[in-house]
């Protein structure tokens, strides 16, 4: 199968274009007339989304005012793989031993990471998955790396507290996680955080890294941070990025 060509969704046959979809409409699903109208409404939405033909395989009333649908259908859209853009990873993922070695030879001390959930977000699963020894997806977290010192401030940390702690700990990097947010609070929180670090440290600020499932990984510059990690990021990716960001020109510095 070509990786640069044209593809369609795959149901059970190449090119069949079959997809599944579920959604709720605020329509009743009571008597026969209401049911027919609800299914018609679902098919209309499916058609407007490009599913043709579409089939409502499941419809269920939820209370007097709502209906849930599962729809299968064929999309006519083509996916042009040559037009797909991905943010290439600008750094290699390194094993833990290599990360430790590079930190030791480039910095000559431990690399200090301060992590927190900021704003109102109380969900520490993301930051804990990256920082705690326990780790995530079969990988140990940053606390496990001998040459990384981790300060995990936990949840609902104020930006001023984060800045003060980063200064007190001489942080090389600050990791901020935002998991569950509403009304784009993760974006405003991140901007507030990056502005505070820029104001407090100027060019000497620590590397700023944010992560969470709602972020667009390509928006780092817009948010004033150095790196954004999305869903499914593992500790070794973060550790490798930190090594990349904090030690690349170590050889030059050593020579000067």
């Amino acid at each position, binding site marked *: 199968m070509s990786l640069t060509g044209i593809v369609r969704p795959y149901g059970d046959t190449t090119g069949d274009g079959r997809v599944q979809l579920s*959604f709720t409409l605020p329509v009743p699903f009571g008597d026969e007339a209401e049911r027919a109208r609800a299914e018609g409404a679902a098919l209309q939405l499916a058609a407007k989304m490009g599913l043709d033909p579409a089939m409502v395989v499941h419809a269920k009333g939820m209370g007097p005012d709502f209906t849930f649908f599962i729809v299968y259908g064929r999309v006519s859209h083509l996916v042009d793989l040559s037009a797909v853009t991905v943010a290439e990873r600008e750094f290699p993922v390194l094993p833990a031993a290599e990360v430790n070695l590079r930190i030791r030879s480039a910095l000559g001390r431990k690399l200090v990471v301060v992590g927190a959930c900021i704003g109102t977000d109380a969900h*520490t*699963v993301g930051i804990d998955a990256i920082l705690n020894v326990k780790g995530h997806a079969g990988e140990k977290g940053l606390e496990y790396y001998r040459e990384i010192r981790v300060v995990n401030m936990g949840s609902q940390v104020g930006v001023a507290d984060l800045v003060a702690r980063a200064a007190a700990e001489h942080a090389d990097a600050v990791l901020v996680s935002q998991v569950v947010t509403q009304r784009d609070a993760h974006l405003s929180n991140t901007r507030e955080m990056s502005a505070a670090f820029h104001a407090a440290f100027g060019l000497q600020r620590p590397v700023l890294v944010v992560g969470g499932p709602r972020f667009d990984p390509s928006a780092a510059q817009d948010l004033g941070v150095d790196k954004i990690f999305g869903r499914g990021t593992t500790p070794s990716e973060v550790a490798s990025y930190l090594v990349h960001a904090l030690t690349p020109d170590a050889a030059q510095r050593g020579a000067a």
Partner: protein
Amino acid sequence: MTGKLNLDPALVAQARELAKRAAAPVVKLARTHTTVSVERAVLRLAGLDGADEDGMPWVNRLADAVRESTGLEHGVALPVWDAMLTGGYPDLRTLAVDAAAGLVKFRQPAGHEGNAARDTAARSVKKGMTRIDAQRAERDRMLAATSDPPMPWIYLIVATGDIYEDIPQAQAAAREGADIIAVIRSTGQSLLDYVPEGATREGYAGTYATQENFRLMRAALDDTSRELGRYIRLTNYASGLCMPEIASLAGLERLDMMLNDCMYGIIFRDINPVRTFIDQRFSRQVHARAGIVINTGEDNYLTTADAVDAAHTVVVSQLLNEYFGREAGLADGQLGLGHAFEINPEVPDSFMLELAHAQLIRELFPDAPLKYMPPTKHMTGNVFAGYLLDAFFNLCGVMTDQSILLIGMMTEGIHTPFLSDRDLALENVRYVRRAAGQLGQEFRPEPDGLVARRARQVLGESVDLLRKIGSQGLLNAIAAGTFGVTKRPPDGGRGLDGVVERADGYFNPAADQLETTPLEAKQ
């Protein structure tokens, strides 16, 4: 139901004794101190509500004014009701407005003026207690007029941020089978040192707990309870910096269950440990009086620590919560001890280990309405796999006779649940109950099989840890990171500046009336 695991009764008794030894010094601390929120709760029970134009509640304004002028070590009641009497104020609100403007000079009244202030304060607070008692009776009346659903009660969360969106969602969930509705709070609320006022429509990942929101939701669920002929319980959170006040508002507005853990705020919100234990005791006394079932938060430990390695920390915390709860007057039937289904599904025999943990807790606390929490940590974006995991959670819950099942959402960690997520989740639990509801009665683990051995191992580890905590002291154990892998020193965290040591002659009419909670709550 008990006796499937061959637990050693002597070891169980020893665990309880060790928990008592670890917790007793903390109870003493709570009896000899007060907090700003305990004092504000006294004012709330006496009927002071509302807020100034900046949204700061009058209870905060008045308590702050008293603290500035005479301190809080004698309690807020004497200076406040002395000022009411000497200033001829018609009500607390008028006094609070003047006090906030700096127009009131508070003092510690003595002699017969002190007695007058004491009597008036006690009478004012008694009105709040009477209302709490009336609400408790009203709950009994509603239960009789509708019906009390069989256990396990199905517990569902709404969390839109807007009370007027929450209400139809809660009613829809009840019609679909939910027995308990929990309105998740805006996540920032636990760190606010005041309770917001009025009906609110803006919250983050939840809706603010306010007296008016409580009232609106309870009224709506009363309508739905009558419509369905089944009493729908309402849950909120007595946690964070305003735990005592929120507990009081819950009693006044007839909430039925409240999240109220002895250590959750310390570990997960970095609230000062001393503040938490003082606030907790008062709030539990209120809950005892109000007939409110508390829900504890041990499930949270398993979201930071590994669910197999840390299983015994759950049991230890439950034993501490039980001791603190009983000491504050809660009946065993009001102790909704929490735990969770959080073992990594990649671990071999993970379901059998879950069965062992859940059955162990059922047997340790036979009369407690245990609250069982669904998987969160190992829910991925694969909603189909998540739906399967939730079904196994439901199965474990019915097999081990859990009392309250919080219903898992296949979209856990992705977004606040869609209407359809909730509907599918209820379909899941209804199927499991229908298909396997009686399985618990026939489920007999092998006496020396994996399940029974694992349960006995966790109990043994719990006793070892309790012994260690007893020798180092609970506050030191928390500081050392014993729970939730998080270290919280007793002089750290938020809210320590709101802790005040009681002076001789400290007077708190609410605490006095709560110490003599009616007998039926203590049975």
